């Protein structure tokens, strides 16, 4: 222990389990409404580190179900908030971790998500109609995990995503939107889940993605931006899905992520020497998982869940 370049797994587990935020902290105020996503980031990291049993599964499942809106079929980011697809996917993903999809009214949830598809194939995030390729991914991923992809017009959904493809092979949030590694993950992930990766120009996009590696070894999300640990996930997962991950220098990237750890108190930050948070802790560990780091469970690049969890869902007989 203590060698630079080693994953401080025990410290990260402790950091997540005792993620009690300081009173008066800005994060505590702004995190309230997305607590369900926070739960997904924290719990997936625990599972990747083989420590999911550190939390009480029944308590988690009970709390998640208290964020459920039975009238709409969607989940809110916290108890008493409005439903949104962002948190509906987080809820489904966390329930997948605990193998508890049985608590869900699957068709009701699938109808909620499917009901947000628009005429042009795009998806809104909630009843207020914000459209973004993030929501295409979220909807497609949720429905696939629930074995209900047939409830949407997949062909139209794919057509919309393809309309967001840019000259550099990447994808943006909407047609004409700048390529951004986060949006690329969403679009490539949705295309992967729907078996539509033939729409991706793999070599062109692969080169753009591997150009995201900076001299410090870290990855950025757009040209001329600084490297950030979260892109370890967005870029690597996309490269894996298009089978081009060998085009980057993994050793340098792993070093960059490991240098962003708080080795004493746990947690990972966006860049070396910055303050840690649960979001970057998840993306750092997930990035290492995609690079087959020892001691970390392998992750599925499209569903953003540990591979054994995804296998359990798709190898089991459909409901």
């Amino acid at each position, binding site marked *: 222990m203590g060698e630079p370049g080693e994953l401080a797994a025990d410290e990260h587990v402790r950091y997540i389990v005792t993620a009690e935020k300081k009173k008066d902290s800005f994060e505590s105020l702004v995190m*309230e409404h997305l607590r369900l996503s926070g739960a997904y980031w924290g719990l997936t990291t625990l599972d990747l580190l083989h420590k999911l049993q550190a939390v009480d599964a029944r*308590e988690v499942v009970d709390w*998640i179900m208290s964020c459920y809106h039975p009238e709409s079929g969607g989940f809110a980011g916290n108890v008493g908030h409005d439903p949104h697809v962002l948190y509906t996917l987080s809820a489904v993903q966390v329930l997948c971790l605990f193998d508890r999809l049985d608590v869900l009214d699957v068709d009701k949830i699938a109808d909620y998500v499917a009901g947000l598809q628009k005429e042009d194939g795009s998806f809104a995030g909630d009843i*207020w109609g914000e459209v973004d390729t993030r929501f295409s991914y979220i909807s497609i991923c949720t429905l696939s995990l629930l074995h209900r992809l047939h409830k949407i017009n997949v062909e139209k959904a794919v057509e919309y995503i393809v309309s967001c493809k840019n000259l550099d092979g990447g994808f943006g949030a909407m047609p*004409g939107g700048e390529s951004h590694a986060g949006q690329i993950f969403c679009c490539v992930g949705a295309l992967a889940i729907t078996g539509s990766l033939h729409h991706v120009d793999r070599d062109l996009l692969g080169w753009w993605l591997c150009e995201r590696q900076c001299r410090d070894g870290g990855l950025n999300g757009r*040209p001329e931006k600084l490297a950030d640990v979260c892109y370890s996930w967005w870029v690597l997962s996309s490269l894996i899905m298009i089978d081009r991950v060998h085009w980057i*220098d993994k050793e340098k990237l792993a070093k960059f992520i490991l240098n962003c750890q708080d080795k004493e108190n746990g947690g990972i930050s966006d860049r070396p020497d910055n303050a840690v948070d649960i979001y970057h802790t998840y993306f750092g560990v997930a990035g290492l998982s995609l690079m087959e780091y020892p001691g970390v469970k392998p992750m599925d690049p499209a569903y953003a869940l540990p591979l054994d969890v995804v296998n359990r869902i798709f190898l089991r007989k459909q409901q």
Partner: protein
Amino acid sequence: MGSSSGEEEGTNKWVPPSQRPELADVVPVGQDDGPCPVVSISYRDDFREVMDYFRALYSAGERSPRALHFTAEAIHFNPGNYTVWHFRRLVLEALDTDLLQEMNFVDQIAESNPKNYQVWHHKRWLAEKLGPDAANSEHEFTRKMLAIDAKNYHAWSHRQWVLQALGGWESELQYCNQLLEEDVFNNSAWNQRYLVITSSPLLGGLVAMRDSEVDYTVEAIMANPRNESPWRYLKGLYKGDNYLPVADRRISDVCLKVLKDDSTCIFALSLLVDLLRMGLQPSDELKGTIESMENCDPETSHVDLATAVCSILQKCDPLRISYWSWYRTTLS
């Protein structure tokens, strides 16, 4: 954080909701965070109190001026809380409020929270209701936000949506020129430029714009050859066409000119190898330049020019050596 009890009173001292006479009939509702130990949260006391009162008004579905004032207060505490924004829109619709005034309100929030999804979505919701008349003021607003952060993805998305839904294309190419003059490395501005030349109803589309755009881009490359964006833009101008970029001497010329000064420029080498693969017959000058660059390596002196360029790339871009090694295999 924290503001006066109502935005119109203009009082400076913040009064806790529990001590305000106008809220005496409201019974606050606490947040139920459940027993889940992951990401447990402690709230600042004044924030908690505001949210307790917000929840009371929200769960009662009260569509009143005081509910509108209260959502403003909750938004000042946490502009990321999407439920507060949702409720605000319901109240706005019920009260038939002045939407221009609401736009001013959200613009102020956006200025201090430029990367907040809810704020930009609220603006779009308002702009949609206001219609084409809102186009110019929205463009002015995103211009102001992009002057602070020229790569703000939210501001760009909003600007593109306003252009496509409400119009206002007239000075957009000029705006791209201006941004690229300020920072030619701004990839967002290059992306916007591509949108304008391909989608503006006033310019005639990509084919009509290509010739002058090639000149513009070549000039930008010559000024800063290590800038990734214009190289990709240049290729984008010939989207899907293998013949035209090979036939247009300006393309191979810019590679040659750059490489004479900077023999390890990855983007020039990369475009050159693309051109060679697409059938470019290299001039003697180009051949001579490449051969003089790699003549210290006898291993490559007998191979074709594209392979020679690839081997140079393998050496001068070690971070992506696997990509260039793969590229080399596609040449045979």
